[in-house]
């Protein structure tokens, strides 16, 4: 990040192609065999291991590490993927520092957990590189299931259903399957088109037909699917974006972070992407971090994240916050946007500092500050698109499900970001899809 072009306008090529390529290299390069063996040796092979308990998909972590140790890499990959078919992506994007690695007993011994995420990648990479089929399908059940959504929840559900002998049609609103793995998530976490390699691997089990560019509401209805299929799984994510709810939301330069990230992920040449000089990001989740860091890596001169609460309340983990800070992003806590300045184009944004009032409610104070901005990214969350969920019981903007991911309709299950109890993690979405598939299988065999 040296040759930043000093234009005030969003523009492309602030950095050279080579600089951008370097900035978007693998965030955590893969472990070499020696590194993996040494790291695997650090695992204590705990009984009833806390890491496994902490993993939303319940991967037998000591088991897969033991297999790395004995050079049984294919067995290790199977141990991972049989619980989490997206174990490859999760090895890259899971916030392991608040999941398995936080639970590692090594933290109590020497304050350095086993690098479970990187070991998981070491074990699974060869399977995707060599397209080794580790799964087989049960005898055909003659049943057909519709899966709406080609993201982690939907693909996980589809894969498990396919292995259980059912035929699946995935209705995907994007032009490629993968969901946020393909269109969200920072590029440096999943290089070399890994998301599509993983999709290809999942589909290679057979029995899964993917129909792209079709959206519920526009091209079909839930009721039609219920009529035409034996069961339905909804992994529809959160298609609508939250608004700031203030004047100027539609000014040039005020954009949705997830849309820009999707554009960035699909760009053949990242240096061709326009990037602002002074970028302000509003929000405190992973998307806020991802857009901030990527803007910086594309050559933005100054990137600020502004979040209305403190570091502990941020959706992004401490590790992610530090990643932003070490990438040159400034994080401002306890402030929320007051007004946008500029004519048709944003030039700056004014914030009010926040604090809790007597009742513990967050409120804006009179203390304000202004940040120059030629680009403002909104990363304040997504919500269900209203017409997606007619007929279904919804609470706090999420589809209500039970422990088996069953919705209020007897033949409809749901999982991923669109359901209650979701935590916006790929790994949780995969688990929802898996659990739903098992429940659907039981339902179909009754």
């Amino acid at each position, binding site marked *: 990040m040296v040759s930043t072009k000093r234009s005030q306008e969003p523009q492309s090529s602030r950095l050279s192609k080579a600089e951008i390529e370097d900035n978007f290299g693998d965030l955590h390069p893969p472990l070499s065999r*020696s590194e993996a063996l040494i790291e*695997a*040796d650090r695992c204590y092979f705990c*009984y*009833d291991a*806390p890491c496994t308990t902490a993993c939303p998909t319940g991967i037998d972590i000591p088991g897969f590490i033991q297999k790395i140790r004995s050079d049984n890499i294919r067995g290790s990959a199977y141990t991972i993927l049989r619980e989490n078919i997206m174990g490859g992506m999760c090895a890259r994007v899971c916030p392991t520092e608040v999941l398995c690695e936080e639970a590692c*007993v*090594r933290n109590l011994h020497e304050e350095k957990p086993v690098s479970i995420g990187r070991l998981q990648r070491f074990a699974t990479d060869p399977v995707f590189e060599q397209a080794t089929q580790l799964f087989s399908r049960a005898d055909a059940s003659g049943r057909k299931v519709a899966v709406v959504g080609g993201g982690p929840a939907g693909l996980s559900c589809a894969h498990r259903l396919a292995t259980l002998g059912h035929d699946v049609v995935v209705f995907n609103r994007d032009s490629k399957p993968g969901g946020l793995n393909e269109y969200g998530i920072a590029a440096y976490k999943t290089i070399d088109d890994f998301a599509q390699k993983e999709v290809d691997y999942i589909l290679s089990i057979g029995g899964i037909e993917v129909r792209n560019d079709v959206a519920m509401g526009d091209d079909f209805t839930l009721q039609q699917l219920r009529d035409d299929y034996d069961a339905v799984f909804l992994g529809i994510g959160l298609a609508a974006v939250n608004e700031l709810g203030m004047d100027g939301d539609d000014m040039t330069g005020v954009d949705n972070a997830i849309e820009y990230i999707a554009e960035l992920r699909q760009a053949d040449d990242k240096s061709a992407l326009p990037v602002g000089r002074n970028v302000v990001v509003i929000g405190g989740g992973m998307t806020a971090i991802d857009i901030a860091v990527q803007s910086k890596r594309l050559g933005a001169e100054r990137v600020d994240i502004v979040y209305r609460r403190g570091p502990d309340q941020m959706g992004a983990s401490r590790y992610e916050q530090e990643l932003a800070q070490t990438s040159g992003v400034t994080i401002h806590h306890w402030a929320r946007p007051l007004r946008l300045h500029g004519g048709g184009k944003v030039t700056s944004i004014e914030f009010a500092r926040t604090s809790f009032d007597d009742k513990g409610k967050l409120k804006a104070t009179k203390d304000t500050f202004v940040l120059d901005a030629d680009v403002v990214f909104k990363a304040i969350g997504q919500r269900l698109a209203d017409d997606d969920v007619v007929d279904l019981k919804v609470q706090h903007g999420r589809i209500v499900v039970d422990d088996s991911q069953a919705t209020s309709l007897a033949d409809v299950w749901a999982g991923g970001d669109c359901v209650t109890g979701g935590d916006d993690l790929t790994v949780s979405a995969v688990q929802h899809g898996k659990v739903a598939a098992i429940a659907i299988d039981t339902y179909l065999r009754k």
Partner: protein
Amino acid sequence: MANLTSEYLGIRSPNPFWLASAPPTDKAYNVNRAFEAGWGGAVWKTLGEDPPIVNVNGPRYSTLHSNERRVIGFNNIELITDRPLQTNLDEIRQIKRDWPDRALVVSVMLPMDEQTWAKYIPMIEDTGADGLELNFGCPHGMSERGMGAAVGQVPEYIQMVAEWCKKVATVPVIVKLTPNVANIVPPAKAAKDGGADGVSLINTINSIMRVDYDTLTMYPTTDGMGTHGGYCGEAVKPIALNMVAEIARNPDTADLPLSGIGGITNWRDAVDFLALGASNVQVCTAAMVYGFKIIDDLVDGLSAFLDDKGMASVSALVGAAVPSVTDWQYLNLNYVEKAVIDQDLCISCGRCHIVCEDTSHQAITHTVNGERHFEVIDEECIGCNLCVCVCPVDGCITMRPVTDGIDARTGEKINTEKANWTTHPNNPMRKQG
């Protein structure tokens, strides 16, 4: 500072650490480097008759590794020196001249023929070497030719050759023993009966390291075929310690001065050998794995240890632990210990629980009041020490002697009187009171 000066069979050295007869002592160049590094002595690599033997031109060594490739065990198929006798004799003479304060002993292996021994021993002594070590230990190659371990496995041969040597030798004669025997005491006794001044042990153990998983041949091979080698390194230390202690505590051999060999890697290993009866120690594998510099830790680690113990010299340590070694039948069967887990140190890995649960006595909890918690159940604990063995945290699980009150497991009162198997009611052969 404790005095590390060592005297073994009258051979003095500035410290009790000698390099064992092996590849590191095959040439003046190596021995010179060892002495520069600070080694107290060296046993020259075994000499034989001319023409010299030949070695294979492929792998001679193989290892048992940890995952981080730390060498745990080591195996070799190298034979005795493959250089002309006169070359070795000339170099030994020069080294002894250059390093008069260091111990220099020469290892020798010859056919089973008295005239041959009588011919070579004076030639070796003429170099000025301090002593002779008879190699009755090498288990590979030479043993096929009736030498090395082939001699060491037959006490009568040991005694006979020792007698031949003692007839002509004017310097101390050490017999190096093979561990590839059922009982180490008869060979040691034979060496003593043959007049040997001391014995050194152990030589290497017959071994095959592994197979090659691609070719499904043994590994390593020489052009597709392999042969067993001699095993050494850290992994063999416990075997060597037992053999040293057996000789040290047997009345027939207790007065035989011992030179301890087998897996010594750091000063603590040396303390093990010395305390169990060795007068000095010999090292090979650790030097071959790390180089000669390890002598620094051996010397000042041992020196600091002696200081801590208030021992003025190495000799004060020699044999200190021998009286604690006995036969199983004399162990006090009334003595009770229980494991205790220090909850402040416990990291909750659960390994103590699972090994006790799966393979022992179901004496460690896994859940207490719904919480993951590991606690010893005294009612079940037999004091076996398995949990201590597997716990990854040093000092977290310890054994606590139960010296009074009731043994929660048996419900019986602790009997403070000692009683062993020889008088136990379940022993049909018990001694009647």
